[in-house]
């Protein structure tokens, strides 16, 4: 049975792109990506552009775990939302510049990921999905209970955007986007570095054949735990930026629906493609924004239908399909 992790790209396609992409192609893609990232708030309402960037990093972080380690986490809301709360609390109570608060949130997400990951990586496949889901929901209940700290159902209000007293960034979403974008890009660069490192090659080996990797002397559970913690940290960066951008943290950030949404983005973009999640995130965020602004209140009907359709008919995802076409054209 083929693993879900290679849905977006067959193993040989992944190896071809990891090892064989021509340098100029990579540079062109990188340049296009940077231009789009820098130009986004000129074409999209800046807070929405920030949402796209944050969700994009979140989806990339999830794909790091799903596409390169074969572990489908249904509990990543714990790290996104957990970091959002901690970032918010740091920003409110300490008044530090927002990047420091975001780093604090991401650190919290990584610490949180150690016990959750330790318990979850004992199982794989469907069990891993269920166990991560349940632990994340536990955090949701805790945050709901600890309302003196988190604001409970009302959410955490009034998260400031301190940035070295530069007023343009602190008040204008357009300039804030450019102040926060480096954090997002740094996170994406980190994900790329991890995938293209010897460590990343071991992950792929574990994904494709865990018993063989174990026989070769790799401590499979430890590798899984490390990538789980790294993925949580990147999700935390994204969640922290999201919290500062919105100025408040709502309880649903921790809910399993959030975990599901980022899975949808990754699957839509293409599992195991890393950058597919960026496209998935952009599409879903803009779709949600469009539906909300046109007064349609049943967004789950649309996202649910997209989910069902993609899983049934379109398992490669957008990036995966594009790459498949490109590679098969080059081969012929």
């Amino acid at each position, binding site marked *: *049975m*083929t*693993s*879900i992790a290679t849905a977006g790209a067959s193993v040989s396609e992944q190896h071809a792109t990891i090892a064989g992409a021509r340098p100029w192609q990579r540079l062109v893609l990188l340049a296009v990506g940077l231009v789009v990232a820098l130009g986004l708030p000129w074409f999209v309402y800046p807070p929405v552009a920030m949402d796209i960037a944050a969700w994009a990093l979140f989806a990339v972080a999830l794909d790091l775990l799903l596409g390169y380690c074969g572990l*489908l986490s*249904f509990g990543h809301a714990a790290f996104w939302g957990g970091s959002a709360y901690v970032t918010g609390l740091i920003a409110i109570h300490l008044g530090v510049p927002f990047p420091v608060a975001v780093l604090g949130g991401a650190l919290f997400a990584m610490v949180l990921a150690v016990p959750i990951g330790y*318990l979850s990586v*004992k*199982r*794989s*496949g*469907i*069990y891993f*999905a*269920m*166990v991560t*889901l*349940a*632990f994340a*929901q*536990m955090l949701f*209940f*805790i945050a709901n*209970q600890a309302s003196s700290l988190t604001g409970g159902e009302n959410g955490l209000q009034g998260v400031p955007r301190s940035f070295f007293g530069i007023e343009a960034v602190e008040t204008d979403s357009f300039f804030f986007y450019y102040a926060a974008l480096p954090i997002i890009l740094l996170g994406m660069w980190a994900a790329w570095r991890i995938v293209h490192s010897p460590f990343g090659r071991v992950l792929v080996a574990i994904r494709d054949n865990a018993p063989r990797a174990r026989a070769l002397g790799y401590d499979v559970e430890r590798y899984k735990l490390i990538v789980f913690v790294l993925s949580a940290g990147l999700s935390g960066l994204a969640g922290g930026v999201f919290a500062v951008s919105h100025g408040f943290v709502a309880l649903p950030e921790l809910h*399993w*629906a959030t975990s*599901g949404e980022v*899975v*949808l983005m990754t*699957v839509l973009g293409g599992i195991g493609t890393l950058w597919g999640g960026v496209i998935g995130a952009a599409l879903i965020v803009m779709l949600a924004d469009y539906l909300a602004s046109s007064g349609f*209140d*049943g*967004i*789950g*009907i649309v*996202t*649910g*239908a*997209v*989910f*069902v359709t993609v*899983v*049934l008919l379109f*398992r490669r995802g957008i990036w995966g399909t594009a790459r498949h076409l490109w590679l098969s054209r080059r081969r012929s």
Partner: protein
Amino acid sequence: MSAVLQYTVQGLAAGSFYALAALGLAVIFGVLGVVNFAHGAFYMLGAVAAAVLLDTLGLSLWGALIVVPLLMLVFGMLVERLLVQWLLPLDPLYNLLLTFGLTLLLVDLVKRRYGVSGLPYERPSALSGRVEVGGVGLPVYQLFVIGVALLVCLGVWLLMTRTRVGMIVRAATERPELAGALGINVGRWVTPVFGFGVALAGLAGVLAAPFRAITAEMGSDFIIILFAVVVIGGLGSIVGAVVGGFLVGLVEAFGQAYAPTFAQVLIFVLMAVVVLARPAGLFGREEATA
């Protein structure tokens, strides 16, 4: 002492919903290898269907207990034929994703049609009030729920162990290739079994209708607890699903009584302990590890 009895009954009643629905989840997982994320949504549909049928046709709870599971059986079989079956040869995570999408769809459809506030449901007079047991007044409805759940669980157990159909289904669960080689058409049982599992979720929903607030979101916490139940009991184990369901119900009731702040967290702590000590679950077989 009287308080303990009260909480026990309350816990077993809550556990009845979990046990019935987890039983459906276990049967589906056993035969299809699918973890049905939409199980919470099917539970919600059962409750909503009971409320709507009472409101429009005046169908009583007694009627709903028969009619709604039958409707859900048909609905479940349709879902299997139209959607789930296409992904059965692939990684089982695909069907988890598919049923997740289905959940979003169903919940928001119900929300649009019936709103976010709860639908009313009046329990039949024969089942309201309390009954004296050893000097303690126990709610009749909770006892009724426990009775129905135990009866259904017993029925499913007899069906699985004492009938030819049950034998075939168990054979198809444990050694599908071997069962096929012995001339059993395993594929024929996939659709009815899925429908049956969905019907059990629907039955749990009908039983919950007079007891819980009927909203589109009522399945959203339920499914997470259900996952904890099957992880605790052992995924695919029928006994594990039932025991896990009642156990979690009891933990919830006593938790709410003695440590309300930690009640919801306790279940997950229990799950963590089970994952640490027995990763396959209390009644799971280690070889089921994926």
